[in-house]
């Protein structure tokens, strides 16, 4: 590491989630642009080792520290990152959201006395090249721009599903790769993270074209069973609002929205969904068809097709049409 100048760079720390490899390439154009503005380089600190060819990253000659974690504890990893950041005085530190990165970032924020912003969906800079991050605040139904104070640099956790990725014409370029290894220390582990729930669906899974979303218009098990049967008939994914999952009608892991997942299917059909902003923010489909009996339901403000009808009648009718085929 001694031959490379690592001081005053932007750090992008990731690698705890299997999707991070894909997100790095998507994030690099934004970070290359930020690095140009700040006249610095981007250092990608990849924990757990990048498994495929590092030349696949559109990184424009930036630096990748490829760290083998093996059996090192999360405490060891935090200490290692803390050491690197203390020595190299970054201009900004960003993490890709995962259970581990949230713990690491929160611990480091206190250890290094730096500001930390969650759910970052964009990075911007002002005329003085001070960067700020934008996050969503759904209680206020707003995007919030947040700057840093009382600290030389700030930290942010990127929400990759919602991040405002920039297009890039940049060619793939040779990277400076540094291979590192963290050893397990003898110290007691102070952090215990039990099994992370497996997501039923991730962005890397092959997307189906259509997703059906159940809202509280489908308020009992029989209606939900028909809804699931319809999804099976048209080979669609299924999702639900938080209220449906809380009532035990569908699995919490398929909640769509701020506290759930973000969906990007071509067509999204909502059945009896009212349209709370916490739910709507998770729908990024090209075409939204909303079915609700209440013509004033909020969902219609976010739909391309406004269908005022009982969602259960529509489900029954669609099933009968498809069963006949």
């Amino acid at each position, binding site marked *: 590491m001694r031959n490379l100048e690592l001081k005053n760079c932007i750090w992008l720390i990731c690698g705890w989630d299997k999707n991070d490899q894909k997100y790095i390439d998507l994030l690099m154009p934004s970070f290359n642009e930020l690095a140009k503005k700040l006249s610095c380089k981007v250092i990608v600190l990849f924990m757990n080792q990048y498994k495929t060819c590092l030349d696949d990253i559109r990184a424009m000659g930036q630096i990748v520290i490829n760290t083998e974690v093996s059996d090192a504890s999360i405490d060891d990893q935090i200490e290692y990152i803390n050491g690197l950041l203390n020595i190299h005085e970054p201009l900004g530190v960003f993490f890709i959201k995962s259970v581990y990165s949230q713990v690491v970032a929160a611990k480091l924020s206190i250890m290094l006395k730096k500001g930390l912003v969650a759910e970052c969906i964009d990075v911007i800079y002002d005329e003085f090249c001070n960067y700020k991050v934008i996050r969503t605040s759904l*209680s206020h139904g707003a995007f919030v721009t947040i700057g840093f104070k009382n600290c030389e640099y700030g930290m942010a956790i990127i929400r990759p599903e919602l991040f405002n990725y920039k297009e890039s014409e940049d060619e793939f370029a040779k990277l400076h790769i540094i291979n590192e290894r963290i050893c397990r220390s003898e110290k007691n582990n102070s952090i*215990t993270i039990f099994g992370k729930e497996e997501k039923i669906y991730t962005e890397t899974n092959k997307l189906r074209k259509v997703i059906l979303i159940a809202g509280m218009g489908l308020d009992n098990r029989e209606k939900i069973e028909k809804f699931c049967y319809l999804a099976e008939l048209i080979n669609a994914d299924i999702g639900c609002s938080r209220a449906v999952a809380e009532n035990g009608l569908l699995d919490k892991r398929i909640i769509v929205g701020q506290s759930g997942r973000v969906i990007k299917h071509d067509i999204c059909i909502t059945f009896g969904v009212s349209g709370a902003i916490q739910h709507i923010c998770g729908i990024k489909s090209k075409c939204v068809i909303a079915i609700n009996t209440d013509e004033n339901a909020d969902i219609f403000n976010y739909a391309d097709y406004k269908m005022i009808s009982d969602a259960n009648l529509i489900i029954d009718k669609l099933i009968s049409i498809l069963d006949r085929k």
Partner: protein
Amino acid sequence: MSNMNDEEDEKRIVVCIKPIKIDKKNSSKGYEYDISPYDFYALFQALQYKKTHKTQIICIAMGPKDSCKALEKCVALGADEAILLNDSGFIGADTFSTSYTLSKAIAMLYPINCILAGRKSLDGETGYVGVEISEWLDIPLIMELSEEFRLNHIIDDYHEIPCVVVFSHYKDRPAFGLFELKKIKNARVQNLCSEQIKANLNLCGFKGAMTVVNDIIPIDMKRESSMSCCAVDEICTIIMDKI
């Protein structure tokens, strides 16, 4: 039937509560506040543990005076003590200064067995105050527990106490009956200021915050409906065409 052992040492559990402002404002009584569902899940776990163990549950929150209403609800549900951290110096806090202030107050409550927190609040959605408290207090952190997990697995089996337990699940507070409403009326919430918790005001509130909100832009995700219809057959035809 309780299998509580009278000779058992009393356990002390601190539950961090984020009071959530509810939209409606009652002009005479100020804003209404409730318990964040993630924090209610933590409180619920403590209350379940209390059923079989001699336990003192202390709920703690930071917020404006009105937010004591969320803590009163905690007492009505079975918490033994409620503490509201309220001081003009605490206003404008971010997670850095919030976790500092809470950890100073929690340190005053020692000896305790564990500190429980919900992973995030429904309004802020930042999700790391619990983690940061464990760092300020330099105590172990346990998180990402399954729904089958019960508190006795930690208090009775885990030897490194105190520790911070962060729950990822949420639970809505049950509706209050007359009995609980009466309890809310009689609930007492202790107010503590910066001096009482020996907090350094340079690390509290806006002064101690490391982040600052520069701008708020309303989210406009609205779409113009290209078609509107009510007839079942017509709706089904459109959907069939689309899929």
